[in-house]
């Protein structure tokens, strides 16, 4: 193999694009596939599996399951190796729960982004090792572009901040969308989102009250509940 193939792979990884390498075994021809992008089919090799879907389908599956796979094609065995962008958590609101949540998510290897336009709250000093954006949520999410490896959690209790973030998250393929607030708070929120034209299906994607019900009381315990639910969504989606 020539190293230019790996230059292309590294560039795609650095750009945070989900990518799959396909290798024809044992001969060693390789192809770079970006199966989640609109023009994915262009330039993909014709190594379709003998049975079942296309090479592109299999590459997409490898990415979504985050697992390597081998398929049998007419030209031989094709090894598919997925490279996913890091799992990201976007937390809207630099509040009391945010610090332990960011810390625990970081320990689990998740890249954390905290969004809060109230600059007194969102300072880098309060959240070491975390990307802090003192921007309005809609703007920040437009920039962050949530993908299938992104979770979005709103914690502010302020409709001005939470609602636009939820609308943006629901319009994206984010794998987990959670909103802090009681059942009653959530009912009011659902009413507002419905009036804004958000579909019932999308509203159903919101986890609220956020987190697994473990009777959490302190900010750190609530963070545990949220992180547990997030991991369950991520891993079960991969497994199913």
């Amino acid at each position, binding site marked *: *193999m*020539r*190293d*230019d193939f*790996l*230059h292309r*792979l*590294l560039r795609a*990884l*650095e750009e945070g694009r989900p990518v799959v390498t396909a*290798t024809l*075994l*044992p*001969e*060693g021809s390789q192809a770079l596939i970006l199966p989640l992008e609109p023009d994915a089919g262009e330039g993909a090799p014709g190594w379709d599996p003998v049975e079942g879907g296309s090479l592109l389908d299999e590459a997409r599956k490898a990415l979504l399951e985050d*697992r*390597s796979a*081998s398929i049998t094609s007419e030209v031989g065995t094709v*090894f598919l*190796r*997925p*490279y*996913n*962008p*890091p799992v990201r958590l976007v937390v809207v609101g630099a509040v009391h729960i945010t610090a332990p949540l960011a810390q625990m998510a970081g320990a689990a*290897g998740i890249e954390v982004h905290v969004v809060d336009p109230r600059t007194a709250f969102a300072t880098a000093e309060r959240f070491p090792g975390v990307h802090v954006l003192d921007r309005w949520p809609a703007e920040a999410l437009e920039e962050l572009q949530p993908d299938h490896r992104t979770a979005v959690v709103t914690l502010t209790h302020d409709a001005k901040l939470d609602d636009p973030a939820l609308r943006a998250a629901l319009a994206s393929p984010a794998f987990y969308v959670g909103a802090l607030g009681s059942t009653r708070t959530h009912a009011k929120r659902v009413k507002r989102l419905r009036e804004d034209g958000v579909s019932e299906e999308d509203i159903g994607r919101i986890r609220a009250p956020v987190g697994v019900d473990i009777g959490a009381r302190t900010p750190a315990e609530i963070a545990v509940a949220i992180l547990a639910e997030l991991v369950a969504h991520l891993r079960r989606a991969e497994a199913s």
Partner: protein
Amino acid sequence: MNRQDDLGLLRVLLEVTGAGERCALATVVHTRGSTPRKTGTKMLVIPSRGLVGTVGGGCGEAEVLDAARRVLAGGRPEVVTVDLTRDILSWSPAVCGGTMEVFVEAVHPRIRP
């Protein structure tokens, strides 16, 4: 192998080829039974520097290194079957009790103008 490992290995590899040196890349492409590393794990063999990453932490790595030598000497890419059930270097059969297939290929610097 996590994302940071992947990025680290690729950067070292490209640094090596960027300096005009060849290296060999080993990738676990199939596993059966209990193996120390998952499918997709990579190891880099750099003649002038040694190894980056591991496909087995000692278990069966000798076969892979032999194959790396062959591909670096100009041989075709190979799929090596490593049987860890008979690895005399493995102290605990419970740790490495399976077999794995490792694809070994040479990576050449692109000819730059």
